[in-house]
């Protein structure tokens, strides 16, 4: 048993023990038991992942498990990255959950309910366990079981606060349905694959893939894309994501949005690049297009969202869209034979996935911290937390900076890499194909617009949510979160910072991942320590030096100002309200008003529903008593696609229901007609 196995199994044993322990203990102990076991399980995963990336392998077959199939595990560097990611998030989320779920928060709705309930606490380590194992699965059956177990455990966790809000139920129903739809697609894809090559293990699939006919390979890939895309929150299969992530307890949101969603990417990489070994160009054009639509749509919705966690959920769709764009472009270039460029784009995608995991964890935990102490997710009611929850604010700021893809945040590095990949699609000699000449500029445009709107989104989230003065009593009475939550967020922020400043630390990892796809990638994509240097392409950037430059400049400025200011003190004064009465927090800009210009610019896409109610004074209609303004931005893709589908299904159901009208004569008539039809068919076909 090597290190990988030891770490994984050790973590799993801890998690199972933690699950049992959490089920048996009281609320206060339970929170610690569940949190610690989750963290330990995550640490096991992290360790195993690092060992896998480091070149260790782990494969085993366990006889006697899983009826009608075998349990098999096989880990490589690709597994390693994702195991490590999941593990890292789990470590943080576990620590965080200790404080988040311990009794005494405003979210506590009484014993046995919410995130601190027995079931939820017991399932938390199990959820992490399944996620840790998913990338290690070595054959189709094992993968499917773990995948569905992951969905089931996460569903239980999403339902944690079902007593508090009816929306939780709706969200869970959406989540369950969409994730199951995705599972069906994955099931068909993988089982079709394995039944056609005549083997269940991934190794067998890899070997057998080459002999499959092209149409079959395409079918498998499309099904896998649908399945994994729905897990990754790709438009139009994203509808569950902005519902489920906000309604889950925040550490669960973090686990789902940062870790679980990333496993959708794992699936695409595993099936598309590894098992199918690359494939047709049009597959990847499709991936690129889906990614582009997701990125744009996700960020647009995020930029106008007022629910902080919903905003983060849409931001997940956006970032997964960017990642899929990178993967799609990598696939296109691989199919065209430009493997070094494919390698770069793939590395950019994986790096962005890593970065996204980092900052999304931090952001969801930050949002959870706010939620726990104010009970609010609505940005329009928040504000002023910077003085009341300074640490949460600062740490959320780190995450927001990263999510906005601004230097010196870590999100910037991977977006930069992605842009480099896309920009260098022009071959050094000869003219590019029409597809690339059309697709790549559009892709750059999409990435750029996404980046711009992403900035708007996170300025809104941070600026409206945390700065200025509180817009509600609850926000005004906020208190800083417990130490475990702060520690967890600080851990996540440290991770983000490390990735931001020296992205080169993950360079070897990316190179190893690239090496797992010999048919797609070629060579090591990037090198360099302080300065990020691309291998084939003349592109370089040094996040560390930029940060140093910023610090140095800031230092110079501050010192100069001190000297020039001749020690004049800074004075606090009332906000300038044009001489009027003291400014009320109600006069502050809200998230809705902040996003109003964007809503207007993109109203063709967003189709906001606005509603203004003017109540006139009883005595004169020239006097206005109150004006009510409501704006709702529905998810237009959802509205366009799903209600008709559900309506058609319901209509069909009603129709079918009318068939069963209770008359036994009719029932018997079904039988007689059926009998005659069958007998006639039997007679005719003989």
């Amino acid at each position, binding site marked *: 048993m090597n290190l990988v196995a030891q770490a994984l199994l050790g973590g799993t044993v801890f998690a199972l023990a933690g699950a049992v322990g959490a089920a048996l203990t009281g609320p206060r102990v339970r929170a610690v038991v569940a949190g610690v076991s989750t963290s330990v399980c995550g640490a096991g995963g992290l360790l195993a992942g690092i060992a896998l990336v480091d070149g260790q392998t782990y494969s085993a077959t366990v006889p006697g498990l899983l009826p009608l199939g075998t349990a098999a595990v096989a880990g490589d560097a690709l597994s390693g990255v994702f195991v490590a990611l999941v593990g890292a998030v789990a470590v943080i989320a576990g620590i965080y959950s200790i404080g988040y779920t311990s009794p005494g928060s405003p979210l506590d709705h009484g014993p046995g309910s919410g995130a601190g309930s027995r079931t939820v606490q017991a399932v938390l380590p199990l959820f992490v366990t399944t996620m840790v194992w998913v990338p290690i699965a070595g054959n189709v059956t094992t993968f499917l079981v773990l995948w569905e177990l992951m969905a089931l455990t996460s569903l239980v966790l999403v339902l944690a606060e079902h007593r508090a809000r009816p929306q939780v139920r709706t969200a869970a129903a959406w989540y369950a349905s969409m994730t199951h739809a995705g599972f069906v697609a994955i099931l068909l894809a993988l089982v079709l694959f394995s039944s056609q090559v005549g083997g269940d293990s991934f190794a067998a699939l890899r070997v057998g893939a080459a002999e499959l006919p092209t149409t079959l390979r395409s079918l498998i890939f499309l099904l896998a894309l649908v399945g994994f895309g729905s897990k990754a929150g790709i438009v139009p299969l994203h509808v569950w994501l902005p519902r489920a992530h906000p309604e889950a307890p925040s550490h669960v949101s973090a686990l789902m949005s940062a870790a679980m969603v990333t496993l959708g990417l794992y699936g695409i990489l595993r099936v598309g690049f590894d098992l199918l070994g690359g494939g047709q160009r049009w597959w990847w054009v499709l991936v690129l297009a889906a990614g582009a639509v997701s990125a744009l749509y996700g960020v647009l919705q995020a930029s106008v969202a007022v629910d902080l966690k919903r905003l983060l959920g849409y931001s997940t769709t956006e970032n997964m869209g960017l990642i899929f764009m990178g993967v799609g472009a990598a696939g296109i270039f691989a199919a065209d034979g430009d493997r070094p460029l494919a390698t770069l784009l793939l590395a950019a995608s994986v790096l962005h996935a890593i970065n996204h995991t980092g900052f999304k964890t931090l952001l969801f935990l930050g949002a959870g911290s706010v939620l726990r102490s104010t009970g609010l997710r609505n940005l329009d009611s928040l504000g002023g937390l910077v003085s009341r929850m300074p640490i949460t604010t600062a740490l959320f700021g780190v995450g927001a900076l990263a999510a906005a893809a601004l230097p010196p945040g870590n999100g910037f590095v991977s977006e930069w890499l992605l842009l480099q990949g896309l*920009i260098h699609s022009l071959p050094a000699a000869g003219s590019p194909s029409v597809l690339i000449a059309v697709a790549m500029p559009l892709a750059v445009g999409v990435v750029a617009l996404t980046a711009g709107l992403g*900035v708007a989104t996170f300025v809104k989230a941070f600026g409206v949510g945390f700065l200025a*003065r509180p817009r509600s009593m609850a926000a005004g009475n906020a208190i800083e979160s417990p130490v475990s939550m702060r520690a967890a967020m600080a851990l996540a922020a440290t991770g983000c910072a490390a990735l931001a400043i020296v992205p080169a630390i993950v360079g070897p990892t990316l190179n190893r991942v690239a090496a797992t796809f010999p048919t797609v990638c070629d060579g090591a994509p990037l090198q360099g320590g302080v300065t990020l240097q691309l291998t084939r392409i003349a*592109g370089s*950037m040094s996040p560390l030096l930029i940060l140093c430059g910023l610090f140095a400049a800031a230092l110079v*400025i501050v010192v100069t100002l001190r000297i020039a200011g001749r020690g004049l003190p800074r004075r606090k004064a*009332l906000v300038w309200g044009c001489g009027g009465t003291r*400014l009320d927090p109600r006069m*502050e800009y809200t998230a809705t008003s902040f996003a109003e210009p964007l809503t207007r610019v993109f109203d063709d896409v967003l189709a906001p529903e606005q509603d203004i109610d003017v109540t006139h004074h009883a005595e004169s209609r020239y006097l206005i008593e109150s004006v009510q303004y409501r704006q709702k931005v529905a998810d237009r893709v959802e509205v366009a696609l799903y209600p008709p589908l559900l309506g058609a299904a319901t209509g069909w159901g009603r129709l079918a229901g009318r068939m069963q009208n209770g008359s036994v004569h009719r029932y018997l008539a079904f039988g007689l007609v059926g009998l005659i039809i069958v007998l006639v068919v039997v007679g005719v076909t003989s």
Partner: protein
Amino acid sequence: MTPGAMAGVLLQVVLLIAVAPYVVGVMRQVRARLEGRAGAGIGQPWRDLRKQLAKEAISPEGSSWVFTAAPVVLLASTLVIAAVGPFISTASPLDRVADLFAVVALLLLGTVALALAGLDTGTAFGGMGASREITVAALAEPTILLVGFALSARVDSSNLAAIVDRIQDNPAQVLSPASVLAAVALAVVVVAEAGRLPVDNPSTHLELTMIHEAMVLEYSGRDLATIELAAALRLTVLLGLWANLFLPWGVATSASPSALGIGAAVFVGKVAILAVALATAEVFMAKLRLFRVPELLAGSFLFGVLAVSSSFFLA
């Protein structure tokens, strides 16, 4: 990093800081003259800065460290750009630190810092300015990156010095369709980013039409000085970048003192010409309604796309 090169970088930064307020002064003076007025002289921005530095700084109640830090971040990010860009020399040792995209991102960082400060004041104007500024910046972003794409695709590098060098080597490229289209697109964006007409009116007193001014309404004294210097510097940097990307002649290709001297002189000249041109153009323009601005930016985006396409198809 040789001392000579270091000196070059330092010279560039100092030169930019020194020149920046004059650029604003020149523009104001040109406008004043065209409006039939005498004008305050091109040194007026420097006088304003000097005075504001000596004044008291006020923080509104309820604001936080974000409010005080924002001017510093704004100026610092601009200074970094001033240090790494190929304004007077392409032989800068810092060129590898940040490429075109990083420069764009740093500009955006400054915008974001100020927008956050605007929100932090808690006034309606602050929020309004922040919202509008961010909207404009978000919509300008695609054009900038597309122009970057068009420029860097030809040289297979997004490093600014490489682009400038390459164009210097092949002057014919200046008049290539891609280059012209990109120049037009970037010009629009420079105007938008610098907060000039027709996107924003830097001298407006009407809060409802303000973008940049609304965000900084609460700043005073040295904070205000920092912001104004940064704004001037951003304008200068943008003009300088535009000039050197499309008309790169005169940029030093080595770090020798004479080359640097010529580079500095040429740079000042180019920026002065552009400032005069921009100010002249502004006289003929009215400010666009806020919700017409996206149309303008969409137009520039189109130019950007055309630039990229032509660099693909006509290269």
